[in-house]
């Protein structure tokens, strides 16, 4: 049985050889409200970590901090040992290694699908257009949308847009993918097509930090589950099945109970 005492939670002391992301004593507050407090987390290559917790618990903020879309007030976030910080000189380089997919997909409405996914590879990484397009098409093919390459985002369904958003992030060859409630804005029948893509990414070894409210999905995909409440990791489990059937802490129990309808 794993040890979930507060001291142990989130602090991985094992080999750091292949760690991708390390968050140390992260402290985030906004206008006097503490949103994340002393949060520690290490993500290793190929690991899929699912973050769950009640609304407003800080889980989306956590992802936004990792991508430096939010300033942090304490601690540090290291990617490959280098700090990620909104003020850092190399922040654009760091962000290229951190792919992010948002809840509301946020494709660029004035660009076609192929332009959406090749814009950053061409303009930021200065890759030749033909090469970027070929790779993009292969990825679009994988999510079943290669034939929509010249359509505009408004012509796609929510699920299709979200799949394009995932491809857009993948085209930058990120070392880690942050998925921020990517199915929360979708109609129920479209949730699956998006989650299937994420599952196949997990199988092919992508490193991911996922915030979601889809418990069955979390259970299926997670190597590790983090339950966050009021800005801190309350429970962490490397055995998702165990966690979802028998959470240890009362707060996690109460939270998971809200998904039951018996």
């Amino acid at each position, binding site marked *: 049985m794993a040890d979930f005492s507060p001291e142990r939670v989130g602090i991985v002391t094992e080999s750091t050889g292949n760690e991708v992301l390390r968050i140390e004593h992260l402290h985030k507050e906004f206008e006097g409200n503490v949103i994340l407090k002393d949060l520690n987390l290490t993500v290793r290559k190929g690991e899929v970590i699912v973050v769950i917790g009640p609304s407003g618990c800080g889980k989306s903020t956590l992802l936004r901090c990792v991508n430096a879309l939010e300033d942090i007030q304490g601690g540090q976030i290291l990617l490959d040992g280098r700090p990620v910080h909104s003020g850092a000189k190399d922040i654009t380089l760091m962000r290229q290694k951190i792919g992010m997919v*948002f809840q509301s997909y*946020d494709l*660029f409405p004035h660009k076609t699908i192929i332009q959406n996914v090749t814009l950053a590879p061409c303009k*930021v990484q200065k890759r030749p257009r033909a090469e970027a397009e070929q790779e993009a098409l292969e990825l679009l093919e994988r999510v079943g949308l290669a034939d929509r390459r010249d359509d505009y985002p408004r012509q796609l369904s929510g699920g299709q847009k979200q799949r394009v958003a995932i491809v857009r992030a993948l085209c930058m060859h990120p070392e880690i993918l942050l998925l921020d409630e990517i199915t929360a804005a979708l109609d129920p029948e479209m949730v699956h097509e998006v989650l299937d893509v994420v599952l196949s990414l997990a199988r092919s070894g992508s490193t991911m930090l996922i915030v979601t409210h889809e418990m069955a999905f979390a259970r299926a995909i997670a190597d590790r589950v983090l339950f966050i409440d009021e800005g801190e990791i309350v429970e962490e489990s490397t055995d998702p099945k165990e966690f979802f059937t028998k959470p240890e802490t009362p707060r996690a129990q109460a939270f998971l109970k809200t998904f039951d309808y018996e």
Partner: protein
Amino acid sequence: MDIEVIRSYIPLYRDALLLTLRIGWQGVLWAFVIGLVCTLIRQLRIPVLRQLVTVYVELFRNTPLLVQLFFMYFALPKIGIRISAEVCGSLGLGLLGGAYMAETFRSGLDNIAPIQEESALSLGMSYLQAFRYVILPQAVTASMPGIVANVIFLLKETSVFSVISLMDLMFTAKDLIGMYAKTIECLTLLVVFYLIMLLPVSLLGSLLERRMRRAEFGN
């Protein structure tokens, strides 16, 4: 209506039209430049200048062009600043238009959700790249109807130029009526010439709007 009279007036109106167009377009050009500078100051949140922009915008949006021109043409010389009527006209129009353009550009930018910028940043773009490739194209398209409306509004506002003795269309019509009392002929010509000036702008504007919308969003 006396066709002969109309025919004999046409060259006068044509000259007036050319003058109106020349000063009008100079004014529109000024309006664009001033509007862009104001928008830049606001976007970059430059202190002091930003407050000055607000004062400027509210001052010029909330006073009539007529009063602004009077002020420039008759009051400024009293403190030693002498500006020719033509410069007064184009600069006055530019200052008025700049205030309107600044507001139009601002609303165009406000239209773009902040997460568009965040999406771009999260892909590793710099602020400049995000602005250039993601924000600006959308903002320009969103501002287009407002920009066209402003241009038409400004060209129409040239009709008050006559108060500072510029021989624009309005001045010419009033002058001719005063001298020969051919009121109907003069006013009909006036309407026709304003239409000649503004209809192409309107048509070009809506064509441009549609073109951009299609190019930008595919519809």
